[in-house]
Every structure is written in C-alpha cells, then in structure tokens.
C-alpha cells in the first residue's frame, strides 16, 4: 500500500483534477464491459499502459509487477472456465484414468475474453490509484455530496491504516527481539498478544485523537480546505517531456 501511495504522490499528473483521471478510468472500464471483445480490452489495456508510462511517468516495471500479481489470481479463476472435465462415454473401453480434461475453442475464447477484460478493468483502476493520492479521491468523493460521515470515515481509515502498520511493526519487532516467534506455539501466542494489544492501542489512540480534535473546537464534522487541481488543458499547455524525471520520488 505504501508503494502505491508513493507513486500516487510522485507522478507527472499528480496535480491533474482527479475527476479527469477517474473519468478516464471509468470510460475504459465501460468500454471493456460494453464491447466485450478481447481485442478491445487488449487495446484498452495497451492504452492505459502507454499513458501510465509516458504521461504519468510511472515505471513500466512497477506497473507490470502490480498487474502481474493481480493477473496471477485472475488466471487461477479463468482456468476452470477454459478447462472442462468430461467422463468417457459408455461405448468407450474403461480407461485407466476415468476423467478427461477438455479445452474447446469456445471455452478458451471465453476464458481469454474474461481475462483480458478483467485485466484491462483492473489496470484502469491501477492507473487511478497509482496517479491519484487517496486525499484527492476523498476530495472527489465529496463533490457528488457523498454523506459527510462517509468522507470522514474514509479520511480516518486512510490516516490510521499507516499508524496501525507502524504500531504492528513495532510490536512485532519487540516480540521478535524476545524470541516470540521461536516455535509454532510461541508464534501463535505472540500473534494473539499482538492482536489484543493492537486492539487496545487502537482504542487508546482513538480516545487521544478525540481529545486533540476537541481541543481544536471540533464539533463532529471534519472541516478542511478543499484541494486545488490543474484542469485538463494543463496536459497540453504544459506537456511534460517524456524524458522529464518524476519529481521527488524519494520524498515519501
């Protein structure tokens, strides 16, 4: 998650209005679902890939690495669609292995279609998440008047996921330093203790956060200044050079 967050804050179209990026991703998804042809999905996938690398300046290798992880799950899911198990007919002599695996042209095409379509849709979402920080997405969610409570929850969850990760890392390191994962039995016990402590720590932090918010005149609503963004025309007015390095990659 931190990896994706780093890309989201350090790409060439970081300042572009998230509505434009979300709109592009949505259009790509609708095209893939609407046309339902493998070559359309493959073309969409290619377009997203080209824009991610040339326009946003995302490293191709990283983009493909993330996509490969997702593709691994997808492939496992489409294999049962491509492959059917058939029993031999009564006329045939009884074989040693009584079941046969069968791949028909239709089933293979169906699986390929599903795979390319899903990959293209996922890569459209990857494009959005790797070029748009969560703070911008939360800001975007506020525009169509999503209930305030939802926006506040999204803000807090995003903020405290990282705090929780840090806390978990510290607790795990503390347990490891005392040989807490030496055997399976101690590992189970340590994991249980960490989970219990993490729960208590979360509760303690939430109480402290409430106190600090109240000290800043909080009355139940999180009020923050909305973000400002570059309009879509900034893409051609200040077209970034292909060779321009992505700024501040190491700042996060």
């Amino acid at each position, binding site marked *: 998650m931190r990896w994706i967050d780093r890309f989201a804050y350090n790409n060439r179209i970081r300042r572009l209005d998230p509505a434009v990026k979300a709109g592009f991703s949505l259009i790509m998804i609708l095209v893939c679902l609407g046309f339902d042809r493998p070559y359309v999905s493959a073309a969409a996938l290619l377009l997203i890939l080209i824009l991610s690398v040339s326009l946003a300046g995302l490293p191709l290798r990283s983009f493909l690495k993330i996509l490969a992880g997702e593709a691994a799950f997808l492939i496992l899911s489409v294999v049962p669609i491509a492959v059917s198990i058939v029993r031999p007919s009564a006329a045939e002599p009884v074989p040693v292995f009584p079941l046969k695996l069968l791949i028909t042209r239709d089933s293979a095409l169906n699986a390929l279609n599903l795979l390319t379509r899903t990959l293209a849709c996922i890569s459209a979402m990857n494009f959005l998440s790797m070029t748009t920080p969560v703070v911008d997405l939360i800001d975007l969610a506020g525009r169509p008047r999503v209930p305030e409570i939802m926006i506040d929850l999204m*803000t807090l969850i995003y*903020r405290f996921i990282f705090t929780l990760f840090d806390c978990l890392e510290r607790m795990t390191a503390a347990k490891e330093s005392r040989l807490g994962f030496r055997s399976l039995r101690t590992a189970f016990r340590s994991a249980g203790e960490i989970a219990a402590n993490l729960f208590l720590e979360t509760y303690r932090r939430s109480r402290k*956060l409430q*106190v600090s918010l109240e000290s*800043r005149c*909080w009355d139940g609503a999180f009020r923050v200044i909305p*973000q400002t963004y570059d309009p879509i025309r900034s893409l051609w007015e200040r077209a970034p050079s292909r060779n321009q390095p992505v700024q501040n990659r190491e700042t996060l």
Partner: protein
Amino acid sequence: MTELFFDDIVYTYPGVNAPALNGLSLRIGSGKRIALIGRNGGGKSTLILVANGIIRPDRGTLRIDGAPVDYKKKGIYRLRERVGVVFQNPEDQLFSANVYQDISSGPLNLGLSIGEARERVEEVAERCGLTALLDRPTHALSGGEKTRAALAGILAMRPEFLFADEVTNALDPWIRIQVLNILDSWAAENHTVVLSTHDWDLAANWADEIVWLEKGKIYRQGKPEEIFPGGTQPERYRRDG
C-alpha cells in the same frame, strides 16, 4: 490584561484515589514563557487538560480575564479559541490525509472563511518551516515534522495561551531548537507559552518563570534562578517533593 487563573482546582480521575490536581491555584499572565516541571504524575498534563476545558474540575474554578469558564458548548468553544494545546504525541493529533488540510481544520472550526483559513495556513506553515511539506501526507512525515505540523495546527487558531505538553521530548537537538524558536516567536507576539517538560536545563534556560508541580500542587514557583539556585542537577533537590 489577559489572564488565565486556575482557582483552587481539584480533580481526581475516575477510579483513582489520589487527586491529580489538589487545590492548585495558578495565575498565568500574558506574554510570558512558563515552564511546567515536576515528576510523572505530578499533575502537569491534567493542568493542561483543565486549561483547555477537556477536563472539568471537581472543585475550583478556571477563570479567563476574571470570568469563570462556561462549560456549555459555546463557552467551551470560546475558551478553546483562546487556549490552545499541543499534545505530547503528534501522531494523536494529525487526523487529515495531508499537512495543508490538517492545519486548515482549526481555523475552519473557528468559522473562518476558506480564504482566511488559507492565509492562516500559509502564515503558520512559513513560521513552522512547513511550506515545502504542505502537500505531504501526514503519515509520511518524520517525528520532528509531525511535531511542527501539530504545533502549526494549533497556531493557526491564534491562541493567546499556548500549552505545549512535553513537545520537545524525543526530538533531536536541531529539531528541538526549531520547535523552541517557534514557541519563542509566538511568545514574542505577546502570547503566553506554557511548556511542560522534564528537562530542567531547558526549563532554566528557556523560561521566564518556572512552575514546579508535585502531587497536584505547586511545589515551587518563580524565576529560574530562584527555582534552581544551586544548578539543575536533580541530586541537589529532594526527590519526594
């Protein structure tokens, strides 16, 4: 003259026998740098929570400019507009996804317009050396940056009384100097800064006045040279208060 007066304050935490504040009376005038010192459990943090209206005393009165604090919603907001608190752990204070939005929260809670809030955010960001970090997600800040961001979030509300609860703990010497410079610049504008600390050297060198709390009461109060006549080595002073 602006004054915050803790008048015979008593407060006991639920489930605890000994009071955290036990008949404490303290006047805090404007434009001073005050160091709060004392052992753990001496009542420093509780005093700060009382000052901000987070804790309502069991007995005694908190007065601001002579008038008792009204603990109804509007009265509490009025108190918090004037008394700001920076807590020990900045991690517990930064709730927004990025620094800019987090600092803007306080001014917007005060009812300022977005334009006015922007001005305040930019002003305190410059004061706290955060201008280049405004776009940074709060979870990606270093410890020192988080402390400065938390401080900026309170300064943006322009409190007349700023209470800082052990904010210099766990900071490297350079960041600590930065934080103290921010507190000094705020005090120089005729605001009062109350810094709670365990660092006696810091208290002696930084503060105009030191308030030493023990067992929920003022043990000693005065100028640094009056509090530490023989230097700041703890061995020179009674441990039991």
